[in-house]
């Protein structure tokens, strides 16, 4: 069992959770979190927002019963962490951009610990959050869009590597932008599928790819944008 250090609301329904005790992790990986005994049944996959020494942080949005229970966690409460899981981001080459939509910005904060000069694109539908933190974390530029389409701010030909994470329609649009722009960049999407086991055994987080089915939890959550067949 790990222990909650803090659980702060940074925007309506968005929380930054700090936990003491973890097993490390690379950028783009996630943990299965559980702050209850038997019910709800399943743990919740949440990507790593930051790690420093024995503290791990998660940024999550209240979307259902589980995250609602997370939002009520207080300092000193126990929480169970299993992980880290997933492939994470490969180390990028050349000029790099991180594009996050809504809560999809979360994994890029930790990624900036390694890729300190990436340009960051943050898109929000209504309230923005963590923007100042991102500005401090990168030596590159930070672009923010509220209520619009963040992808419209990106020149897909200006980068060698582009990582994206956000809602399904945004990631689908990334794939289209890649084709339209003729970008030569390596473009990745980080997917957020419903999961059960988290380790590649149960096949419920299946991702349809051009060369067959893959598992978001074990083969992903990071995939090349071009290999995913969006439904």
């Amino acid at each position: 069992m790990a222990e909650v250090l803090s659980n702060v609301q940074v925007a309506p329904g968005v929380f930054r959770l700090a936990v003491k005790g973890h097993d490390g992790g690379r950028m783009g990986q996630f943990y299965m979190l559980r702050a209850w005994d038997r019910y709800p049944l399943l743990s919740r996959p949440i990507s790593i927002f930051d790690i420093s020494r024995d503290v791990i942080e998660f940024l999550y949005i209240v979307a259902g019963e589980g995250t609602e229970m997370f939002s009520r966690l207080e300092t000193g409460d126990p929480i169970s962490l299993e992980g880290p899981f997933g492939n994470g981001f490969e180390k990028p080459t050349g000029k790099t951009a991180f594009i996050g939509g809504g809560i999809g910005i979360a994994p890029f904060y930790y990624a900036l610990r390694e890729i300190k000069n990436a340009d960051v694109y943050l898109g929000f539908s209504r309230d923005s959050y963590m923007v100042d933190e991102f500005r401090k974390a990168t030596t590159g530029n930070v672009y923010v869009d509220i209520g619009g389409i963040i992808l419209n701010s990106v020149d897909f030909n200006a980068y060698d590597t582009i990582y994206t994470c956000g809602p399904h329609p945004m990631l689908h649009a990334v794939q289209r932008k890649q084709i339209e722009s003729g970008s030569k960049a390596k473009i990745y999407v980080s997917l957020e599928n419903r999961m059960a086991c988290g380790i590649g055994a149960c096949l419920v987080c299946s991702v349809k790819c051009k060369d067959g089915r893959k598992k978001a939890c074990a083969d992903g959550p990071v995939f090349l944008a071009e290999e995913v067949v969006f439904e």
Partner: protein
Amino acid sequence: MTNLHCTIAGVDFKNPIVMASGTFGFGKEYAKYYDINRLGGISGKGLTLHPKEGNDGIRVYETPSGMLNSVGLENPGVRAFLQQECSRWEKLDIARIVNLGGNTIEEYVEGAALINEDNMNREREGRKAVDIIELNISCPNVKAGGMAYGIQTVTAREVVRQVRQATSLPLIVKLSPNAEDIVGMAAMCQEEGAEGVSLINTFSAMKIDVYKRRSVFNNLYAGLSGPAIKPIALRMVHQVSKAVTIPVIGMGGISNATDIIEFIMAGATVIQVGTYNFVNLRAGEQLLQELENFMLQENISSLDEIRGIL
């Protein structure tokens, strides 16, 4: 000293804890988290003769005390299993159960025949990778076949009869709670020479997205599992145990030692653990420890003392 040993069709189970098909892959993922050789056995991911892509769309949805799944039997096919997984299964010191599904009787029979042939080839070289075939006539998530064979006893009889003839491996039949008459179905399996029955598979169930005004699942219905179904599973295991003399493998929502004891008391020889693997990565290890503790505490030295006492 507690004795947890069980036997089905001459196959030894170190203890009654078997991991249920579809929740444990072929064992290698969980083997990273604990020693799966401590288990009684595993039933591998359901196989079909040909590889199967499974269902599109959302495949899992959490419900109160349970979950719905609509994986649709995604699997690499019998041949890929035999070629890619069995060398690892040979080294497992537990009861190894292959779960076999199909779209047509011919597919079931050909799949069983392939597994049988592979088994004979290995046995000639003093090796073994598969101990039991678990015939899946109860998957609710595939359009053709699957559960279609598990509803009516008369339809299921033909599958069981033909698969029985296609293999000399011990055969158990996994039954659906959606069957018209699950007791009659079990009795039929016994008549046709099955060495056991396992029950229950998931309940056919539903979830509607009221905003999109459509089912959450592309396949309309999905399979309900987890603690929510345990009381019904227990009742069915009890009824079936009373009606047949072949071993019964009980499952449905088991998530602690007393759940296991209940199923044994209802008549199960061994039990399977499915959904609870998603709650606790080390479910097998934890349940074994809990079961040993419970038996010591309650002065039960062997499961035979309590099996089928109701």
